[in-house]
């Protein structure tokens, strides 16, 4: 049964959103007060949605995995946020931002969603300025911009190298205002354990209070999932330690379809791995590629000598350096999209030109930028990033080139949503990185912040009303029903089961094993043989987890080992559909690179004939094969081309 209806409004692309808003149903203020909304997650999407819905008058409950919304991982986004303001008079427009995003996503995103994103981008900047977000300004007092990968205009707004922090604090402040006003209630240190579905509609959630282990029931007329992405399936990623795909998996198990799980973004500029004890990877903002030049030695013997510590990068003459991005992609140079920059780095390192002790690193060099702009200017632009690099690596990046290597960073896949950001379960919405909607097979830099805030400030407050308008006859959702009791019971049974295993393997060791399988076989370069190997390996790992995991401590207290174990169990489930999705997609597009499908020059080769669709996975039950549905992508307004950044 194919039930996918993307509900894209009729009409010209530029008129769809306007028409939708003009004809959607609204809820009057007196009724808004009677309607409850649950928001799970307090990052950009969750905080902005809760603040906006609260300001409209809905009764909002928001759930935060940490002690404060300000900890959400949106805070770590460094570079900036895109908007089509065209303040620079360099030819930007809503149409161009739309086009760049679709092209950047390798023609695997929905036209109508992306156009709406580009349309509301300008309002986001205005909103944030009004909140007191201290964006960088020029000497005239106007907002400043920088350029970012995948674009030929300067449309990125920024606040030093801490844009995500400032935007999140903006959303957090708006949320704090609503908490004070009493329209939003905040529940901190809670993790979602299950979704409750009543008569086919999302009606609430079960949470675990992380401080005392209490299992709690919460009812509402609608639920928003804004819990971010699932990059931590790879164990080592730039995601924060608490980032997880658990909530999305719970929804998937309750009937929400999961779209494009194989689309994972590998970020080209991260600090390389040092050792087995490594717990996470640190991203160096893509904005560094504005002024930094990426290179490896031209001669393989130089690379060898560097790895052995016999040669320093500063001793390599200009003519012996291979600025491979500038060489291969003269038009975009160091600013090619992330997937291309990542694969190019892997290609050089695999060919033996990698640097650093492990050989899995390339240089990002600021020598010519310092010569051109002066050290002060470079420090003003990237000072905090340079400081962070020096702190971690103990090398001064003003004097020596930085070393970088690609790492898992963002997941384009996520819960399938229609134009209204509603999943296949009525009343369940997904926003931000948790949904799949806007980035296709690859996300452009500075677009995640844009999407999270677009969904929360400007999309959900409209589309959710359209759903809630016919819920005004529904009285308060009681949590004393069979559905809630059953959900709570199954959560408790699952947790007791995990605690009872008392096996030999620590959660961390199993997590590392999962990460290893995913990075080696479902990582940057994928092929049929490896993917076919990964699937049974994951099945074995699942068995190993459920028979041999060791979780100490107890259920009814603060227990980080148990928290990690619950998430790991869900991550293994996700890994399985990621591998299956990667196997079925016999083409290379965006972040999904299949080594069998390349052009003669070694570039990714898309297959629009057979794969211009969204792979949408339906859970069929424990020990059953999931079923994949297809949502065909139709490009009515854009001319589909082979992506070319040369």
């Amino acid at each position, binding site marked *: 049964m194919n039930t996918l209806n993307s509900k894209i409004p009729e009409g010209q692309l530029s008129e769809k959103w306007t028409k939708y808003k003009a004809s959607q149903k609204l809820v009057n203020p007196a009724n808004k007060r009677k309607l409850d909304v649950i928001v799970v997650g307090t990052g950009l999407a969750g905080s*902005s949605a809760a*603040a*906006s819905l609260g300001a409209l008058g809905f009764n909002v409950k928001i759930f935060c995995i940490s*002690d*404060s*919304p*300000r*900890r959400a*991982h949106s*805070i*770590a986004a460094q570079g900036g946020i895109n908007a089509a*303001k065209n*303040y620079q008079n360099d030819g930007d427009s809503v149409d161009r931002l739309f086009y760049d995003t679709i092209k950047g996503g390798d023609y695997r995103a929905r036209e109508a969603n992306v156009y709406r994103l580009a349309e509301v981008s300008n*309002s986001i900047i*205005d*909103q*944030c*300025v*009004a*909140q*007191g977000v*201290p*964006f960088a*300004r*020029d000497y005239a*007092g106007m*907002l400043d911009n920088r350029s970012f990968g995948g674009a030929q205009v300067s449309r990125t707004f920024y*606040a030093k190298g*801490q844009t995500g*922090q*400032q935007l999140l604090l903006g959303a957090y*402040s*708006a949320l*704090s*205002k609503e*908490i004070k006003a009493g329209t939003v209630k905040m529940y*901190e240190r809670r993790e979602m354990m299950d979704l409750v579905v009543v008569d086919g509609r999302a009606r609430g959630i079960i949470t675990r209070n992380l401080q005392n282990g209490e299992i709690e029931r919460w009812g509402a007329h609608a639920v928003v999932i804004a819990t971010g992405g699932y990059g931590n399936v790879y164990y080592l990623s730039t995601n*924060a*330690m608490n980032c997880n795909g658990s909530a999305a998996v719970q929804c998937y198990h309750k009937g929400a379809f999961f779209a494009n799980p194989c689309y994972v973004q590998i970020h080209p500029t991260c600090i390389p791995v*040092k*050792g087995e*004890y*490594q*717990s996470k990877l*640190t*991203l160096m903002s893509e904005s560094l590629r504005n002024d930094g030049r990426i290179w490896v030695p031209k001669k393989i013997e130089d690379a060898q000598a560097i790895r052995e510590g016999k040669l320093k990068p500063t001793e390599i003459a200009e003519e012996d350096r291979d600025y491979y991005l500038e060489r291969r992609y003269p038009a975009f140079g160091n600013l090619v999209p992330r997937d291309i920059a990542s694969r190019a780095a892997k290609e050089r390192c695999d060919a033996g030109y990698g640097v650093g002790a492990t050989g899995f690193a390339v240089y990002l060099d600021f020598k010519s930028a310092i010569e051109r702009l002066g050290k002060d200017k470079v420090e003003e632009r990237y000072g905090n990033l340079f400081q*962070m690099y020096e*702190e971690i690596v*103990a090398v001064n990046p003003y004097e020596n080139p930085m070393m970088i290597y690609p790492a898992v960073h963002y997941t384009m896949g996520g819960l399938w949503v229609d134009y209204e950001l509603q999943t296949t379960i009525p009343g369940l919405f997904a926003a931000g990185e948790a949904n799949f909607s806007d980035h296709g097979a690859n996300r452009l830099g500075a677009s995640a912040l844009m999407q999270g805030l677009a969904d929360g400030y*400007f999309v959900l407050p409209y589309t959710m009303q359209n759903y809630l308008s016919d819920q005004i006859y529904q009285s308060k959702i009681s949590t004393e029903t069979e559905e809630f009791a059953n959900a709570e019971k199954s959560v408790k049974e699952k947790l007791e089961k995990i605690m009872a295993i008392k096996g030999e393997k*620590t*959660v*961390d060791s199993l997590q590392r094993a999962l990460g290893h399988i995913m990075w080696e076989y479902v990582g940057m370069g994928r092929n049929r043989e490896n993917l076919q190997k990964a699937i049974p390996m994951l099945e074995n790992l699942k068995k190993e987890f459920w028979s041999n995991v*060791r979780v*100490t*401590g107890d259920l009814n*207290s*603060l*227990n*980080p080992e148990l928290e990690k174990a619950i998430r790991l169990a869900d991550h293994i489930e996700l890994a399985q559909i990621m591998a299956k999705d990667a196997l079925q997609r016999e083409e290379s597009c965006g972040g999904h690179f299949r080594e069998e499908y390349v052009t003669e020059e070694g570039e990714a080769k898309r297959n629009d004939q057979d794969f211009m669709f969204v792979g949408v996975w339906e859970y069929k039950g424990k020990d059953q094969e999931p079923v994949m549905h297809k949502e065909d992508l139709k490009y009515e307004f854009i001319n589909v081309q082979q992506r070319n950044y040369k």
Partner: protein
Amino acid sequence: MDFTLKIWRQENRKAKGRFETYKISNISPDCSFLEMLDILNESLVNKLSHPVCFDNDCREGICGMCGMYINGHPHGPDKGVTTCQLYMRKFTDGETITIEPWRARPFPIIRDLIVDRTALDKIIQEGGYVSATTGGVPDGNAILISKHKADEAMDSASCIGCGACVAACKNASAMLFVSAKVSQLALLPQGKPEAAIRVQNMVAKMDDLGFGNCTNTYACEAECPKQIKRSNIARMNREFICAKVGSEESTKR
């Protein structure tokens, strides 16, 4: 590198805490402080004991979630970094490292090294915002802001809300934290209309919650991982006095 760790263990808010001593060896100097604790915890799980609980999240020094008192300093001996950005190369081989939670009355201990810092959120809820609701705002360039003011506001806005300033202060004062937010919004034209109400309400809440007063020792500034300046406190005091003396506006919203 080898270390002896003296770590504060406490089961819950009400339980009596104590120091426990652990030995740990073969730690790489490039290992981060939290990764060193990960290694300790994995070994504790292998011995079937309960791992040391500590807050942490981004491990990039920006979320403000981590924070512990290390050898008598919040976030450890290194300057301008959070605990997650502290590396073992900053310690000497064989050293004994003492690890405690933040100690301040408004931050009750939840477990081991984890404290409850929601008091800081409660202060922000009293006015640490511009009361702009979504939509209906002017164009971002409609009100010009001098680069100098925008940069200064950004410096104040860099606070990560970790609570090190409170932990460092002998009075458990939150003045640096509160003043950073008051300053950011007082420096920007968008924050001006509510400035007088904001500073009064936030200060009142800070006092209510049991944070102490500032007696100008500046331990907060010295220990702040984001190097937030004490000039913010001076600005807040000015704002506060002006609001008390010069403003006719009520603090009621």
